[in-house]
């Protein structure tokens, strides 16, 4: 006979696992066995406070209390404290009262870290499926209209109005061969460094993505969906596969979605290690089993996408924003944010930062608030010198621009972009010339090779930067570098070659001394 029963919550999220969550679970179970404690550990998603991971939680009087960062070495003392309700040095108090968490507006990540990601009953009890049920009861055209009215824009980086895409796919004529197929494709090839929102939501609340895709499928008339997942995300793959299985069993996917009489089915496709497959046309090629070489646009994927059929391609977070828009209405969603950037964005604070993690808030938060106030500055306690926003194709910005609001228009006006919402912090040891070189180097590695400006331009870019570094005809080579960037912007087929100049030129503009233009020259 056991004496006490105890239920704990521990993330299965990749971050928690990478910091020892599995070891902690094992140690807790072993200690519980020794103490005759009947222990249940529910593996959840992560709350996004990654400096506290592994973050162990217990529920007391309906409130979740946290302990972290908790390692296997803490297992015995934690169990002792939990069973006897005693103090523990790792105790954090109520998790949702921690300022980093409390100050967020969690529309998308509302359930992440709270529920068992694979429990459909809990998903529903926490507001899940309300959006799908409402969508089923609403005419398709009205569903597309609601998405348009919400102002939701593509969260993958381009920021294109989602509702416009929905209407295009919904209105796309079916092919003449009678194959009346349309597709929903979820772009889960989250390759940008500094971003992990897609991974977190897929690991922590996979039914949300399934629900979003089902709403999209029913609304635009697509019976089949694919999630294109990168191979670097094995945990997400396992959770998604299991969730899809359960969704099928529960009639959430299949021939008769939630009794609607309409069919929608879903499959996970695992990529094979190519950054370019995050570009939608490259992704579609890859999903067809081919080399991930980009296609020229037009035709738009909305009209001729996967296998030439009308295809709605969206990023994970875009699709995950849909259920709440349907459940609570376009106006509810649109009231968050500013200007043409409506709703919330899960910003990801990463790199050299004290309080790294995921912070969901309405558009309009300033860059400085994100990295200094919320992120707490650098973990090396040195001054921040630069942040890069939106991955390898994003701009490097200096602290003098920390007053800028994080919204699509403000960032664009300043030569930057929100991208997928990732913000990477660098301290004063960063060399921007080195980062510019890396941008080209990355492009050499990851270019699909189809167009010359990107394939050859990136190689030339590395060479030119190396000449600047070696102080060979510096002024001429700086000019050449700008010319090259211009050519890549104008001549590249897709955003890869077209945007690699952004990190390079923003580095040159805001940190000229690293290119030997001002102070460094004088010092030499």
């Amino acid at each position, binding site marked *: 006979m056991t004496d006490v029963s105890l239920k704990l919550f521990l993330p299965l999220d990749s971050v928690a696992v*990478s910091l020892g969550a599995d070891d902690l679970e094992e140690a807790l179970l072993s200690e519980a066995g020794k103490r005759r404690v009947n222990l249940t550990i529910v593996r959840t998603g992560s709350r996004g406070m990654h400096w506290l991971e592994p973050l162990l939680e217990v529920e007391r009087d309906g409130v979740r209390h946290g302990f972290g960062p908790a390692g296997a070495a803490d297992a015995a003392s934690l169990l002792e404290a939990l069973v006897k309700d005693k103090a523990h040095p790792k105790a954090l108090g109520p998790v949702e009262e921690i300022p980093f968490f409390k100050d967020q507006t969690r529309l998308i990540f509302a359930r992440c870290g709270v529920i068992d990601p694979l429990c459909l009953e809990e998903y529903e009890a926490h507001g899940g499926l309300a959006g799908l049920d409402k969508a089923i009861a609403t005419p398709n055209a009205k569903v597309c209209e609601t998405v348009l009215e919400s102002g939701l824009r593509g969260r993958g980086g381009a920021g294109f109005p989602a509702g416009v895409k929905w209407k295009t796919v919904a209105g796309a004529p079916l092919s003449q061969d009678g194959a009346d197929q349309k597709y929903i494709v979820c772009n889960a090839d989250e390759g940008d*460094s500094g971003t992990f929102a897609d991974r977190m939501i897929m690991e922590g609340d996979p039914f949300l993505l399934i629900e979003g895709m089902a709403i999209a499928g029913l609304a635009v008339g697509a019976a089949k969906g694919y999630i294109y997942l990168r191979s*670097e995300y094995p945990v997400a793959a396992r959770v998604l596969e299991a969730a899809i299985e359960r969704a099928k069993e529960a009639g959430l996917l299949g021939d008769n979605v939630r009794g609607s009489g309409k069919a929608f089915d879903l499959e996970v496709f695992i990529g094979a290690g190519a950054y370019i497959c995050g570009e939608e046309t490259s992704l579609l090629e890859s999903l067809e*089993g*081919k080399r991930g070489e980009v296609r020229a646009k037009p035709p738009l994927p909305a009209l001729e996408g996967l296998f030439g059929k009308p295809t709605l391609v969206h990023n994970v977070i875009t699709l995950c924003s849909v259920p709440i828009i349907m459940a609570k209405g376009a106006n509810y969603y649109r009231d968050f944010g500013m200007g043409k950037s409506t709703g919330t964005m899960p910003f990801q604070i990463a790199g050299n930062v004290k309080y790294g993690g995921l912070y969901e808030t309405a558009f309009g938060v300033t860059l400085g608030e994100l990295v200094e106030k919320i992120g707490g500055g650098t973990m090396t306690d040195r001054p921040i010198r630069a942040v890069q926003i939106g991955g390898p194709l994003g701009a490097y910005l200096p602290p003098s621009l920390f007053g800028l609001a994080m919204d699509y228009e403000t960032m664009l006006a300043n030569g930057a972009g929100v991208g997928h919402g990732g913000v990477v912090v660098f301290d004063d040891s960063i060399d921007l010339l080195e980062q510019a070189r890396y941008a080209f180097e990355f492009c050499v590695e*990851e270019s699909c090779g189809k167009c010359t400006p990107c394939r050859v331009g990136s190689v030339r870019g590395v060479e030119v930067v190396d000449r600047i570094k070696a102080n060979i005809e510096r002024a001429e080579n700086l000019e050449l570098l700008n010319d090259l960037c211009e050519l890549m912007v104008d001549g590249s087929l897709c955003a890869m070659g077209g945007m690699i100049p952004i990190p390079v030129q923003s580095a040159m503009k805001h940190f000229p001394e690293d290119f030997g233009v001002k102070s460094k020259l004088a010092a030499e």
Partner: protein
Amino acid sequence: MDATETKLTAIMEPWVGRTGGLITALRSAQEAFGYLPAQAEAIAAEAFNLTRAEVKGVISFYADFHREPKGRTVVRLCAAEACQAAGGRALQAAVEKRFALKVGETSASRDLTLEPVYCLGLCSCAPAAMVGERLVGRADAGRIEEAIERESEAAE
């Protein structure tokens, strides 16, 4: 058909006609053999009704596919920006020194392969690495060595 070819055919054929089937078939073959045997190209071409050039094009395009066996433990060090910001370059240098191996190389004993990876989505606890199937956040050379030991223990 020799044994390898028979096995390759059996692994790949179920994927014919599936969406993106060639890529999944190649991955399955690679998982079974640890690498893509030379015969994989011709077998896949036959099964999927493609030219060998088309199959070769796919294999060479994706970083995950490799035609040579790797080390028993593969250590993937993240080389992307967020990890650079948090000491990734120094970590790479330290790991290369400790194992006397450069990133991109496999040890002569075939115990270890070091390779770069561009983002594991662990950017908030950088630098990050993946040792076999094991994720390592806030990595240092010591934690990577420990993970290698645990991976090889698990394999035995």
